[in-house]
């Protein structure tokens, strides 16, 4: 055992004593192979985050929005294929959450006429987008200044209608506050689509997303006259995006 230890110590010591230290090493031939992946090279992809606010009115009556509280949040992966220094095409896949905070007014009809302390509709999307990018100004391997024109399609992966009620007296469960979440909202379409415009300077982007399709199913809008039809939810979100690159 002692012998083994001694051999180990000698081995370690001698390897240190005779080791060479490489301080600098450059493989020039490998280094100077032209790259094709980069912000202004043939291919590029990056993650991005998006946060924005609702910037539009509902269509119809019986629904008003709380604008500062109605927002969207998204994460996406964006791919860009450079055609020229001024033109690129691309796609992105994203998940986004649209939150519509509903104002509690006397003439509220959506999704019912009951007033709550707080009420919101949340729609979760999994989307695909195709875009054309026009770049402005000269640049090196940078994203630069650009405008994107895009078309998107979303599949609604989930939606919920949430309410909060604060009771004057406790209810049968001896609780003073009631949170309610309704799922499987049959009045919502499964898919939606629209157009987007983006203006960006490198990683900083302002995006406007306009939904062309309706979110509310036709049969909930064109109901018999005896029942009040649902209004269509606002279509426009203005968001700030930040690219991770």
């Amino acid at each position, binding site marked *: 055992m002692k012998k083994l230890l001694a051999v180990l110590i000698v081995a370690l010591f001698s390897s240190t004593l005779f080791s*060479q230290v490489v301080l*600098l*090493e*450059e493989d020039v*031939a490998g280094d100077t192979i032209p790259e094709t992946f980069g912000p202004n090279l043939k291919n590029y992809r990056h993650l991005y985050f998006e946060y924005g606010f609702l910037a539009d009115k509902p269509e119809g009556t019986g629904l008003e929005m709380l604008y500062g509280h109605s927002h969207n949040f998204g994460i996406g992966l964006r791919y860009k294929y450079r055609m020229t220094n001024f033109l690129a095409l691309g796609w992105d896949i994203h998940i986004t959450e649209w939150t519509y905070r509903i104002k509690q007014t006397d003439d509220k009809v959506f999704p019912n006429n009951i007033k709550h302390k707080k009420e919101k509709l949340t729609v979760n999307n999994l989307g695909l987008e195709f875009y054309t990018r026009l770049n402005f100004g000269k640049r*090196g*391997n940078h994203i630069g200044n650009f405008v994107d024109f895009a078309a998107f399609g979303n599949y609604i992966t989930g939606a919920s209608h949430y309410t909060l009620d604060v009771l004057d007296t406790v209810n049968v469960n001896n609780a003073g506050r009631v949170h309610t979440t309704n799922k499987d909202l049959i009045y919502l379409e499964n898919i939606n689509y629209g157009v987007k415009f983006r203006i960006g300077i490198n990683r900083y982007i302002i995006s406007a997303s306009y939904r062309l399709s309706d979110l509310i199913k036709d049969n909930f809008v064109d109901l018999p006259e005896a029942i009040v039809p649902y209004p269509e939810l606002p279509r*426009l979100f203005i968001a700030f995006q930040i690219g991770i690159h």
Partner: protein
Amino acid sequence: MKYKKLLIILFSVLYITNLFSQDKYWVCFTDKKDSKFNPFTYFDVKAIERRIKNNISLYDSTDFPLNNNYISKVSEVSEEITSETRWFNAVAVWAYPDQIEKIKQLSFVKQVIPIYYQSVLAEIKTKDNPKKYDETILSGQTERMEMSIFEKHNITGKGLRIAIFDGGFPTVDVNPAFEHIRKEKRIIKTYDFTKKKEFVYSYVSHGTNVLSCIAGIIDGKKIGMAVDAEFLLARTEIVREPFSEEENWLAAVEWADKNGADVINSSLGYTHQRYFYRDMDGKTCFVTRAANLAAAKGIFVVNAAGNEGSGKWKFIGAPADADSALSIGGINPATDYHTSFSSYGPTFDKRMKPNVCAYGHVVAAGKNGLHETQGTSFASPLVAGFVACAWQTNRSLNNMELFNEIQKSADLYPYYDYAHGFGVPQASFFFDKEKKELEPSFSFVEEENNLIIMINKDMIDSTGNNYLFYHIENEEGILDYYTLIDVYQERAAIISLSDLKGNKTIRAHYKKYTAEFELSKN
């Protein structure tokens, strides 16, 4: 209603798009017809002397003024003319795409080139602590280039005129580090090309640091080597880091030429903001072409290699890619080899850059006294001071002859790589030209399919650095591979010859001795 909103958004986007679209261009003219030029009223006497010495005509058409008719016609169809360049027979204009199309149609317009901007001063950071700096760095930054040998021969850059292009020179008019220069009125001219006025003694202190690394003296200690040189101070950069315009650089280089500069020090580089590495080919970037033209007029151009070594860009920027500009890399005083941030070569067309190197971590004079700072921005003026001193030793050399001499003086020469160039220039070279026979410090030994670099046992220092440099050069004279090893044993490196294809030269350098091994596989 639904689509009305969509249209409003669309129009807003198009409006903003239009805002983006105004751009800046060089409009180059076909000729200089009818322009009148008198070199004796245009040039400083030193500029005339330099031309005569270098056999350059005093009536070189590149120095003639532009045709005024051409300028006024371009002015009518563009937004604004911001500057002009005699050397390239061009004006810088702001114009919208439709305007630039009209300009292109003018019969006297030869070419329209977009102007690239966003340069970066090659400074990393500044520790502005006047009390704390490393004395060994201060003495080492000049002594590593053997300043004491220049001093022994009373060589201090006297009679040489150095132009510095930078972001500002605050306190140079009052700072004690430059008192000796002011006292002898050796700041010949100043000009702020960003504001079109003479005052330059404000803004960012980068230029003050740079000047001190050429000629500063504080408490009797020399910060740079050319303490007796004359100076032209040009402010070409607007802020410390990005956003400047190469048109200022171009205007400044013509100004420096006109005012008799012998040496230009420029510590900025244009890299990824506007260029690709493929543009670093010594002929694409306008500033690179201007640097080469300055050299063609007899000026010695010294430029920082840049601080992209550890960044994505990695390589030198423009105008350090100019073949006639001496590009300066940085070494770390603590290790005495390449400092990680110093940009690497080669150029895109595979020319060796940087050419030489110097300390990239220095002590410099700033607004509040001496402080430590780092960047190839400061390696460059250290070498610019060296260049002025070396030129003083032999004024009969022209700029490109001196360029070659500076490279030969460097401590790795004839060994080179793309991190150090030929190494650090040495003053002793200019006084002791006789080549001494050096005792070989290593040998190449072939063993089967391997080449062993065997270090002489007696030359392995158990306390100091034992740096073995070696590279593999292909038949086109381009390095495929280079390395630096700190050696502890005789069998310092084993190179597998069977892995190498074609004819190669394996060159190694150890303790001032360079040898090579030719591998022929034809």
